[in-house]
């Protein structure tokens, strides 16, 4: 237990410290790198709680795909650090409001269980103990049976968002020579090479 407690405090301390660094570091690329560290420690916390599937998915999805693209974009931006500092106080009230609302919501979620015990019964599918079912199987059993419509609906929302992003950025330029692989592959010798008999002494 001592080792687990030590790991917990290590992961959570690093996660919180790097989260602070995300918003306070001067260089945006450093911010993203600290965000990576924060995600990684969150994944460690998941594994420590026995939710190894969630931990690994966090790393694969957020670190392996989302943050790579994020870092990619931030590297390309030409950001003036001094200009960003000026805006800090201007946006502070909005940021503080959002943070406060999130905090209140967290308290409501966690407090709801304490205030009204019957709220716990809303969660109709109890979590099976981890010794009996691996949590990948447990999640699959719940997601694809009880919550299948919600799960599919969220998939459709993401699909729509993806198609929307493609539609917004797709543009067909005219006057560009494009490679047509089919045309290339089906080209025969007859239509691409023309043999000319050239008389010596006169041009083509």
């Amino acid at each position, binding site marked *: 237990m001592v080792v687990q407690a030590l790991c917990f405090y290590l992961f959570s301390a690093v996660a919180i410290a790097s989260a602070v660094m995300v918003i306070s570091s001067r260089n945006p690329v450093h911010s993203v790198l600290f965000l990576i560290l924060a995600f990684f420690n969150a994944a460690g916390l998941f594994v420590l709680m026995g939710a190894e599937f969630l931990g690994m998915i966090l790393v694969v999805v957020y670190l392996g*795909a989302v943050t790579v693209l994020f870092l990619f974009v931030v*590297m390309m931006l030409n950001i003036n650090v001094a200009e960003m500092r000026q805006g800090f106080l201007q946006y502070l009230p909005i940021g503080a409001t959002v943070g406060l609302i999130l905090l209140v919501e967290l308290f409501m979620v966690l407090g709801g269980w304490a205030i009204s015990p019957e709220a716990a019964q809303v969660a109709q599918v109890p979590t099976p103990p981890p010794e009996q079912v691996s949590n990948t199987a447990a999640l699959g059993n719940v997601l694809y049976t009880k919550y299948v419509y919600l799960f599919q609906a969220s998939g459709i929302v993401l699909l729509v968002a993806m198609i929307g992003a493609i539609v917004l950025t797709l543009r067909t330029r005219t006057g560009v020579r494009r490679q047509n692989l089919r045309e290339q592959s089906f080209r025969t010798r007859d239509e691409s090479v023309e043999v000319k008999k050239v008389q010596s002494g006169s041009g083509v």
Partner: protein
Amino acid sequence: MADLWTGYLWPAIFIVLQIVAILVPLLIAVAYLTYAERKVIAGMQLRRGPNVVGPFGLLQPLADGIKLLFKETILPAGSNRIVFVLAPMVTFVLALVAWAVIPFGPNQVIADINVGVLYLFAISSLGVYGIIMAGWASNSKYPFLGACRSAAQMVSYEVSMGFVIVSVVLCAGTLNLTGIVEAQQNLWFAIPLLPMFVIFFISILAETNRTPFDLPEGESELVAGYFVEYSSMTFALFFLGEYANMILLSAITAVLFLGGWMPPLWIPPFTWVPGEIWLALKIAAVLFVFIWVRATLPRYRYDQLMRLGWKVFLPVSLGWVVLTAGVLVTFDLLPQ
């Protein structure tokens, strides 16, 4: 006191010993993979290859290592020092930590976790960070272009790799690597899932930035890509990391498709050979194809690379996942 010893100290020492027992042979294998690559390519191009240092040039990797060790480490003036030094370490460490879940035989694995496949996938998807960090921190145009290409390439090919892994997991019915190997007792997955095996192999070529997908380090256009500015040990760490990654992905191929530690047939001359040797032979076979491809194929053009990843591999692997699931359900072949 005895409790402290049996409860904490002895397991910790045992784990460290296990890690050393994997890392030392791995690093020797990395050193000799560079030698093997030069020798094999030399053979294919009718040359001799390294043959001066030691008998048959066998001490060449050591000589190269010592040479790199004694060179000067240069930190470019405009670079971002911390990230610049961190990048090769990230690449190297990520290539090593994944070995924790590779099973070398029944019950011969450091961490036999339930989600071994996902762990491997997660670690290999982090590999891109070392390259991006190196490209950005160098503050130089060629490394940056190399890093951009590499990020786009690795993210693209990871998608189809994910679907390939899903189809393997469907057939095995578990995310545990030992379980996946044991599911191949009678039939290696390379046979029923042959198209997926081919797609996976081509994707790992792209994932390790090897020819014909070595655009991130294309020496004819980007000098050497993301590690132009690196010298001495920082360069050596990138180099070792790249080769360790090749061995790792070959091991993953062997575990997912070629039956891991299992012999090809369960009859005497094959069953006499221990499982670790079988795994090593399979890894060596995949590595040979890596080198063979390098000696044979020219580099892909960038738009062709993207087209292959997104327009060919992604639809084919997605379709194959649906097909596999359909066949398994229809013929009642689902594991368990």
